[in-house]
């Protein structure tokens, strides 16, 4: 067998995050010589999912780093860890994302045949947190209606308010039509909430519902972006079946897709090396020579890597909590014939929470709950992924949100918190960079719902690798492999 150094590689891909992995998938039928490495000992990069031990090791590495995608990582066990199961019973996603049914990612997984390796679960209800007005009563969660049937059966809005909501939903479903464009284009760049208020006379309550559906972390998107996001949600609703608009891959979300994509790359002949990074590189006219941390020296025509620097101040604060309760009320299917959801979303609207010092936190906070059906925790427990825009008080606010949330969902007792992971996650550049023989994929902003825009740089990179062949080859479209089921064995 040839050694790594004897081959002139067509491409070396560094990192096994979703983007690099999808690139490997896109090239898996080309017969090109691909070397795919990752300095980590695990797949997934920033999209990885961890067992408890892996999370602890990861935290050790990121506790004190002040640059890079992740920082300020720590673990707390507020009520002792008596109920925790063994380490590998958990799979905590670093970047939990739900995928809308109409997402291009799913159609690419289908056309490339990789979807068969992934089990998708339904994302169910979206809720808005309602603080209690009466000190005797606990806070509640109000389900956000997003279909005609939801609105008709909802019990708290007035008839008039419901008509307003229906008009808005109908408007969005055809927001690129002529009449509709005339209404919103003049306001395309102004704040979405203002548009909702002025054009649809939506009061604060209804606006909160709509903002929840956008999953916006700063609650301040433009009208154009807001309409596009709601459109995606509404058109995804019912697309794969009644009662849900988005899906979540079992066993760790996006990390599972990354692994499946790498597996496809391996079946296609790519060589995989974990625990291997690039020590140094020497660029000449026609190739790059890479000194790997494994001691190997390899030559390649193209190097693709991800940007691991963060730019700007945009950063998300995260709190991932393992809770000793199945929280069944969050995972009910509301519509006959709908699958039982494994994920639900709750938004604390901007201004709903205060810091210790009594200041109002002016951004939304999201709690994405995962049941044990996701395979991310054992039965009888759930995982709560909280996210909020980073401010000096955001970690504080996340703790508050978790407490209030558990208060609202707990039946008789407040569910016990077994394990909490805290960290901050930044965003890198938004543009890919191609400089000579190196292509750098952008470090896409970690949104709560997968953004199809992340797929474009991958196709661009694919085009660079394919060269002239790109124009007569269809992207991410493959026939079934013969004996596909025999080759792809589960790890």
């Amino acid at each position, binding site marked *: 067998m040839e050694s790594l150094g004897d081959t002139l590689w067509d491409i070396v891909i560094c990192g096994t995050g979703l983007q690099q992995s999808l690139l490997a998938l896109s090239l898996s*039928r*080309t*017969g090109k010589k691909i070397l795919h490495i990752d300095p980590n000992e695990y797949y997934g990069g920033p999209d990885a999912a961890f067992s408890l031990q892996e999370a602890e090791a990861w935290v050790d590495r990121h506790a004190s780093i002040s640059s890079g995608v992740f920082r300020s990582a720590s673990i707390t066990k507020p009520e002792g860890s008596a109920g925790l199961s063994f380490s590998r019973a958990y799979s905590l996603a670093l970047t939990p994302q739900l995928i809308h049914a109409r997402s291009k990612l799913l159609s690419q997984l289908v*056309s490339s*045949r990789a979807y068969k390796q992934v089990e998708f679960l339904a994302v169910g209800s979206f809720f808005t947190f309602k603080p209690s007005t009466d000190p005797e009563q606990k806070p509640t969660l109000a389900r956000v209606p997003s279909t*005609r*049937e939801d*609105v*008709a*059966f909802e019990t708290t809005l007035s*008839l*008039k308010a*419901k*008509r*307003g909501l*229906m*008009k808005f939903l109908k408007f969005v479903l055809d927001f690129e039509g002529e009449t509709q464009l005339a209404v919103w284009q003049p306001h395309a760049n102004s704040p979405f909430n203002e548009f909702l208020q002025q054009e649809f006379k939506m009061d604060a309550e209804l606006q909160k519902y709509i903002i929840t559906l956008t999953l916006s972390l700063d609650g301040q998107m433009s009208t154009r972006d807001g309409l596009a996001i709601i459109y995606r949600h509404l058109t995804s609703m019912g697309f794969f079946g*009644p009662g849900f608009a988005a899906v979540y891959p079992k066993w760790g979300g996006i990390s599972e897709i990354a692994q499946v994509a790498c597996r496809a790359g391996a079946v296609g002949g790519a060589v995989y090396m974990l625990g291997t990074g690039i020590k140094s590189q020497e660029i000449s006219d026609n190739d790059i020579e890479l000194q790997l941390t494994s001691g190997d020296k390899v030559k390649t025509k193209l190097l693709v890597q991800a940007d691991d620097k963060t730019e700007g101040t945009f950063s998300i604060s995260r709190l991932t909590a393992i809770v000793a309760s199945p929280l069944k009320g969050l995972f009910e299917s*509301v*519509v*006959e*014939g709908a699958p039982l959801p494994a994920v639900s979303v709750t938004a604390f609207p901007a201004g709903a929470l205060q810091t210790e010092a009594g200041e109002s936190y002016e951004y939304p906070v999201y709690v994405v709950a995962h049941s044990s059906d996701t395979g991310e925790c054992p039965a009888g427990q759930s995982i709560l992924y909280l996210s909020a825009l980073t401010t000096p008080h955001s970690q504080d606010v996340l703790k508050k949100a978790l407490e209030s949330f558990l208060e609202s969902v707990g039946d008789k007792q407040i569910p016990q918190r077994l394990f909490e992971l805290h960290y901050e996650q930044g965003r890198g550049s938004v543009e890919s960079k191609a400089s000579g023989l190196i292509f750098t994929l952008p470090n896409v902003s970690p949104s709560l719902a997968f953004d199809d825009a992340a797929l474009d740089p991958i196709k661009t990179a694919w085009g660079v690798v394919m060269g002239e062949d790109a124009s007569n*080859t*269809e992207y991410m*479209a*493959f*026939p079934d492999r013969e004996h596909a089921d025999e080759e792809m064995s589960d790890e």
Partner: protein
Amino acid sequence: MADHSGVSHGVARTSRERTAEQKLVETEKITKYRELEDEVRAAVVRNEYTPELFQLTSKLLRINPEYYTIWNVRRRSLISGLLSKRSAGSSPSKASPSTSPTATTTTPSAASSSSSSTATPPVPESSTAGKSSSTADEPAFPPSNPGDETAAAEQKDREILRLELDFTIPLLMKSPKCYWIWNYRLWILQQAIERLQVAVSRRIWEEELGLVEKMLNRDKRNFHAWGYRRHVVEQLESSSLAGASMVETEFEYTTKMIRQDLSNFSAWHRRSKLIPRLLDERHADDMVRKDFLDRELNFIREKLNVGPEDYSLWYYHQFLMLNLLNYVGHPTIAPTLTNDERAAYITREIDDIKDLLEDYPDYKLIYEALLDYTLSLCQVEGRKPDSSEKEQLIEWLRQLKRLDPMRDGRWTDLERDCGLLKLGFGKN
């Protein structure tokens, strides 16, 4: 290497052109089919209802489940030998020549009439060779006493009937709307009632209800499935299956279906048909009935509020209004309402529907309803429309002419009938 031969966009292309080879394959298939069919028909002509014939019908029906005559052949095979003989005391066989039709022309929704016409041709016990034991490989042991014999016979029948139900399932998956398969299922289910113990046949029918629910989940507005469901529920409620009323769960089921899709006309229709019996079984007094009416009006109001374009919703609203208006000689929800109370209800409905116009100015069904109900109100109050009502009627008719110009003649007729033209209001 990417291989795209024969594949376009990852999907195999289905070609209309047939190669010579494909034509050959098809000709062979047709020949085999004809041979199979001939074999079956020959055996029928010779009156040889053997287990072999039974197997042949399986083959043929798998290829062509629409061939209803063959379903009959299968029925006769079962009756003439595979199923146990019915003793003299049990339901009499309606003797008739072997060409008597069984349930060949009824649709599933009218199936209750078909199940009683299982005419069985007389078959001599000893004649045909190879006739006898069950399809399963059961040893035929001589039963020691009559009681055992009955129990053994019933057990055999049960297995055969279950196998028959299983047989139809893959056929249904392929041809979910084939009447003949559903008819056959109903016939088998009726056999279950006639041949098996109540507890056993009841469970089989309950499973059938589960199957109908699956069908309705797949296609919520499958009109035939709703009819089939009605028949299944009727049987489950009947004494032959030791049944009790299911009106409450059926009513709840319509709510569930509406929750899934407001436009489910069949669900609304079923709901309306269940109400009289529902209220009777609840022994509802006048107050309870009035409360029920209020709730149903509220229920439909919320639906119309979000779906004013939907005809099935207006249909149900009309049903409730007719309850208020057409109470002479019809069972209605709240029969003892006074005239004043009825007028008050109609007035409220008119006011609520007018609210819809604030946000939905271009839905013709709203104007039609306002027109209808205003005229009904006048009828109830025994008067003609007053001047402000007339102005509104003219305005609504104007809107209807704008929104539904195809029926311009109708709107003009209405104008005339209401005496609105003469007054010179509203031209065109």
